């Protein structure tokens, strides 16, 4: 009985304190800065009249999203990185955009951007394929 209790406590403690599926290896400050630079640079490079344009596949409309504040949280998806930033649309309604980034010879490149709900990301988070990097 005592052995089982001790094993549970240890297991709970390990689960409580290890990053495992939910936590990736921590990023250095430089990496985090580089990632932020990369995301902002990508945003700036994609600005059209101060907004990033996005095609709504459901309606076929092109929506303009204006950048507001970058999020500090960084997620990892295997070797790829997912970062977030807040936008507002024309009406001022806030929307969050996810930027999927890959590392290429020391630089980061955004290869996918989603605006608003991201069911794929949610599923991957639920499945444990996405972890917080900081």
């Amino acid at each position: 009985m005592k052995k089982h209790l001790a094993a549970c406590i240890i297991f709970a403690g390990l689960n409580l304190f290890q990053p495992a599926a939910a936590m990736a290896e921590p990023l250095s400050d430089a990496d985090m800065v580089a990632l932020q630079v990369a995301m902002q640079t990508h945003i700036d490079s994609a600005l059209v009249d101060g907004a990033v344009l996005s095609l709504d596949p459901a309606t076929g409309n092109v929506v303009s999203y204006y950048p507001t504040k970058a999020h500090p949280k960084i997620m990892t998806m295997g070797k790829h990185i997912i970062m977030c930033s807040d936008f507002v649309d024309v009406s001022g309604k806030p929307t969050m955009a996810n930027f999927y980034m890959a590392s290429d010879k020391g630089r980061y490149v955004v290869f996918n951007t989603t605006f608003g709900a991201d069911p794929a990301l949610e599923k991957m988070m639920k499945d444990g394929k996405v972890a917080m990097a900081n």
Partner: protein
Amino acid sequence: MPHQSPEKTGTTRLLTRFLRLLLPAFLFASSLGLYVLGAFTFGDERSAIVTRIGNLAARTAAAVNKISDHHQASQTESVLSLMLADPAVACGFIADQSGKVIAAAPARVGCAGSQHAAQVDIKLQNPVGATLCVKYNLTELEDRGKLFRIFTLIALLGSLFVAAAASWFSFRVTVGKPVNALLTAIRTTNMLGKPTKVSEAPDDELGSVIHAFNSMQDKLESEARRNADALRRLDYIYNETPALMFSIDAEGVIIHASGHWLDETGYRREDIVGAPLGQFLSAAPGEDFDTIRRTIVEATRPLRDIPFTLARKNGERMEVLMAVVPDIEADQVAKLCVLSDISGLKNAQVELRRQAVTDHLTGLPNRQGLFEHLSTIKHAGPAEAEASALLFIDLDNFKTVNDTLGHAAGDQLLKAAAGRLRNCISRKDCLARLGGDEFAIVLHGLRQPDDALLVADRIIKAFVNPFRIGEANALVGSSIGIAHFSEGENNDDILRLADLAMYQSKQSGKNCVSRYSNDMSARVLSRDIMVRKIRDALNEDRFVFHFQPIVDLETMRPVGMEALLRLNCPNDGLLAPYEIIKAAEETGLIGRITSWGVAEGLSVARNQQSRIADRSRYISINLSPKQITAEFMSELIARLKGNPRVARSMVFEITETALFRQDEDVSGMLADLRATGARIALDDFGTGYSSLGHIHRFPVDIIKLDRSFVGGLGQDNEDARRRRALIKATAALAGELGMAIIAEGIEDNESLGVIRDFGIRYGQGYLFSTPMPANVALDWLDAFDRQAGQDGNVVQLARSKPSK
């Protein structure tokens, strides 16, 4: 019950243990918590800062890319300087492809002082090939981290202190106070021996403990009260019970005594507590006190009835019996001793013993007392026995006095006789009353056997003078038998031999002394044989009557027949009645003989009415004085009433002794008997103390002059002359009183002539006939009747040997 306020007593150790467990845990948990908090907080802070830096650097790069060429230096530096607004940015510069700094912020200084800061490079599009380098550091974060750590340390210490203080206070209030109250109550209970309760109980688990404790104390107090009551009752019972109780320890030392013990003995408690048993008790004679004491001290089970003598304080002694009850308590073995005062019982025993060996009437030793005295002679040795002798004394004629004057007079006579006997002996001799009129004297220190005779002679002389009993004089003699201790084997033997000798004195005419000789035993043996013969005769119906005619001296006709008892013995023939009657009276068989005689006489009278009743004759039967009892007489009277004709042909002869019995209403019974038609004859008149002056009060019809008066009346001597005078007077008075007189023992014509001359009408004796068997007697009557029918003369038979 006193309620104790809780004192500030020892929960320090409990508090210390509590704090020793709590504070390290608190410290660890707090530290861990703060660390984790700090890690998460500063992690987020760091992320926010680097996000800000990256954002700023990227925006700055985007802004520099939009600057036109000719304003590039000043505007670029302006744009770069905007970055410095962020405290995390240390400096920034733009370097061309060759690495030359073309713009910097701070202007002209650039990153000179920030070589060690982190740097992020961003490729620019304008100028082409240029790179924006932004150096940053997280000093603010580190500074804040330091502050955080200091703050957290302070907070930790402060909270530790607060926690400790709060814990200490809370502990004291919630645990210390009630626990101290409990401890105080428990210590007070131990100290005072009285259950003490806690006054306040918090509304928590400790309060439940306190309630339970108080409840337990209530029960303890009730039990203590019950125990105290029981102890008080026990103490009361112990001290007030009227029994002599005390307790001893394992060494036999007295440790406690009841109040009653102290009252009875007169001792004070301090006199006896701590004293040994032997200080107040001594063992019974012949017992060893130490042995008994050891038995008591070592007893593991109750003991009873141990005899002791207890000395009171005033020196008086009590005979007691001790009962011992061991009382084993823990390691102490004590005993409860209870004494029962048997002094009264002992005294009663002594008195009983004394009464058992003392004659109540005279105060002399009785038969048992005599035997005990005789034992001392035996144990004293042969020399003492040789010098000792036993006198057996029987008072002559005592029975007559007793019956005549009454038992009270008889008792006075016995006491007076005892006095005369005592005066005849010395102090060393022993006088005892054996019972009735029998006494015994044990003589000691006889120089020679004849000295016993001298004492006996002295006794006989002492009884010469009559005793004055009331207004009467009673003359009794003493028949004495002497036996010497050398002649007998044991006490019974000596007494028996002396008795035999006394019997010899009786046989020899009384008022004399006889010394035992061997032939006396033979004679006694003869009496025992006689008794056996009588019993056998009664069982085998071998008693018979012989009838002697009673004759009318005028007509010489038989007027009646006296039935005289005979015993038909197979080996010895016909036995004389005197020996039969004497032995029968001595052994109590006379009653059966009388009953037989009455039945037989009535039967003859009933069956021979033609010879008896029809001819106006009677059958005369002797009644023993002892038989004249209410029971016997009522039965006889009933039988006579059933046949009046037979009753009228019966005469019952009684002696003077029967007339003067005091224990029965003889006169009344005789009157009732006479009322049936039977007549009463006074037998052996002249041999007792009665006189006509007494007899006239009794229903007597006939007086039978004793033969001792009648025999030899014709002689010419003083005795005969006196007797003739007495007879003459008696005849005259009897005639006046209407009583008939029968003269017994007429054996010669001279006596017959004298009797006739005195006017005595009837006679009986050998002159007329000897006693005859029934059938012979009846034939005699028939022959008389036949001859009387012819010439009326009496038929004289040849004289035979006297049988009465």
